[in-house]
């Protein structure tokens, strides 16, 4: 871990703030315990991705401006969502000078890459004695390269798996199609409802075959989609964010 205490801004996606506060709490507590000087800028809203991915990137100026206002001046900005981080990295375009925007784009990190690449943690006092299925979220994987990708010819690695390997008692189980998309896809989940649900059901099926108790992921949006399907199916299997596992019994 770096010697200096770092000023870290906690970036919580809007839907996590509103619907999944436990994921945000776990992220907050975890980073605090790991020694970060952590602030949650209280006027943050949304990164703007829902509009941009729907073709309305012309409407994201307000979100950009608000984001920059909230997150200027941190050493690092950390977020428990690969998707929102990728959006900031690729599409933040307003709200500051080009240098300010570049600094933000460079200093925004998804939680697991921050833990592995910046804090370089190699042990965790966490325990989660359960069978856990891992869902790899596309934007974190193919966008932020949090793990190797099944399509590419390259050495295998996974930052998420590296972190989960430090958790006591956890049995990690992988679905047969290691990195197929869950079908959430932002507004895709409602505009292409049939395909979206079918994709989600197919992913879940592979986890159920493995007998998992939890499906874990780094993006709550994928998990929310799974949770909706699992609940409708009356399944006992639960979804859980990576941060909640890493923070368990820490």
């Amino acid at each position: 871990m770096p010697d200096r205490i770092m000023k870290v801004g906690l970036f919580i996606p809007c839907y996590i703030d509103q619907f999944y506060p436990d994921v945000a709490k776990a992220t907050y507590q975890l980073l605090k315990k790991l020694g970060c000087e952590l602030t949650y800028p209280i006027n943050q809203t949304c990164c703007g991705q829902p509009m941009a991915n729907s073709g309305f990137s012309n409407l994201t100026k307000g979100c950009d401006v608000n984001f920059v206002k909230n997150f200027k001046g941190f050493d690092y900005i950390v977020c428990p969502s690969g998707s929102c981080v990728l959006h900031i990295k690729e599409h933040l375009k307003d709200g500051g000078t080009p240098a300010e925007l570049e600094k933000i784009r460079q200093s925004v990190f998804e939680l697991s890459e921050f833990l592995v690449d910046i804090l370089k943690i190699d042990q965790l006092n966490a325990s989660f004695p359960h069978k856990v299925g891992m869902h790899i979220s596309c934007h974190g994987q193919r966008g932020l390269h949090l793990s190797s990708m099944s399509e590419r010819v390259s050495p295998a690695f996974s930052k998420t798996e590296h972190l989960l390997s430090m958790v006591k008692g956890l049995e990690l189980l992988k679905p047969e199609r290691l990195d197929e998309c869950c079908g959430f896809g932002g507004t895709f989940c409602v505009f292409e409802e049939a395909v979206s649900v079918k994709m989600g059901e197919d992913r879940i099926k592979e986890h159920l075959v493995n007998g998992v108790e939890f499906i874990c992921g780094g993006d709550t949006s994928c998990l929310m989609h799974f949770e909706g399907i699992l609940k409708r199916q009356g399944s006992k299997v639960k979804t859980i964010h990576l941060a909640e596992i890493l923070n368990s019994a820490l």
Partner: protein
Amino acid sequence: MIVKQHADAAQEFIKDEARTDWHDETLWFVRNKRDKAVNTLPEWEILREWASHIKDHTLSNLDHYLKSFEEKAVENGIHVHWAATAEDHNRIIHKIIADNKIDKIVKSKSMLTEECHLNDYLQNKGIQILDSDLGEYIVQLRKETPSHIVLPAIHLKRQDVSETFHEHLNTEKGNYDPQYLAGTARHYLRDRFIEAELAITGVNFAIAESGGFVVCTNEGNADMGVHSANIHIACMGIEKIIPKAEHLGVFLRLLTRSATGQPITTFSSHFNKPRSGQQMHLVIVDNGRSRQLGRPDFRNSLKCIRCAACFNTCPVYRRSGGHSYHSTVAGPIGSILNPNLDMKANSDLPFASTLCGSCSNVCPVKIDIHDQLWKWRQEIVANGYVGNGKKVGMHGMAWVLTNPKIYRTVGRIGRWVMRTFPFILNNKLNPWYKQREMPQAPQKSFRDWYKENQ
């Protein structure tokens, strides 16, 4: 004819879940074969990089390479025709047919002729073409269009093929044996090859330095037609050019590994000049390609070598079928090519994706397909091809998310409504709720908790 939007057609497709699963698994099997094949080449990623650079370079110098290709081809005795549009392409081919008073024509697979609707055009003039690729032959008998550019009949099971052949080729009813069915088609097609007077083929690669071109098939049907008929018409888009023959060493290695997991197509046939007594024609088609070349964000879609790896990997394609894309080229690559041909008619296609990015990862020429899908969405909205409901919704959402206080108030009220009057959202007007439960709305947001606990 009313064309169904992708989402509606996909919903129809998925209604038959067993068939959807079969379609998905069949194409996933092809994707897996591809993975195994590419992992035998440690230099795979380097090959992709080279292919991408060669294509980028060629597209940046397309005028030069096309001219030099034409010059060499003409020197070799090939008749070169230029077609600005699909209509020109069809007219040129019709004229060759009419001038030579031909009525026995076989065609091997060419997605360009499908794009130009050549079969329909000629049929309206009383001329029948026989599609000699087995998959294309099957869909032709069924009066359908290909649902996949490499595997045109992948939407059909052998039972379907058996019924079609029973109807048209008088095969035994209920005999699904693939060997029996393929054998019957082979027998029938063999006679058509022998009597063919004119053979139409596509072009996979046109070599600027030699004026020759390469046609890849697994069935040898292009060769059968061309060697038997006295007239060969090859049709190619302007983007099929590569500068040198040695570049085939890159592209031929990438093409079939990406497409089917084979090291190379069974037949990679090189055509350089007509044999004695043969007429060889080459129709070089633009049909919107130069317009795409002029769009900085989308020009590199023209690097495509039509391997369809992006189809096979696409979780949306596998679960919605090729016909739901209502275009000759379906799948992710089709979704970035088709809006160039008709932005309004194809405005749904760039949204038929979760932007998962798997397509860009398998692309052998490194087209940034998922980024272009994102960019086409912006383009389509900017051009007004978006529903009013979505437009109003997005404006509302942007307004809420721009103002922290409003965001918090709307969030608080929204959560309260969800807890107190769940039926307001839990009904059939909400597409999320149709097959999924809504998330549980907590009393407090994270921000509320943070302010109390920091």
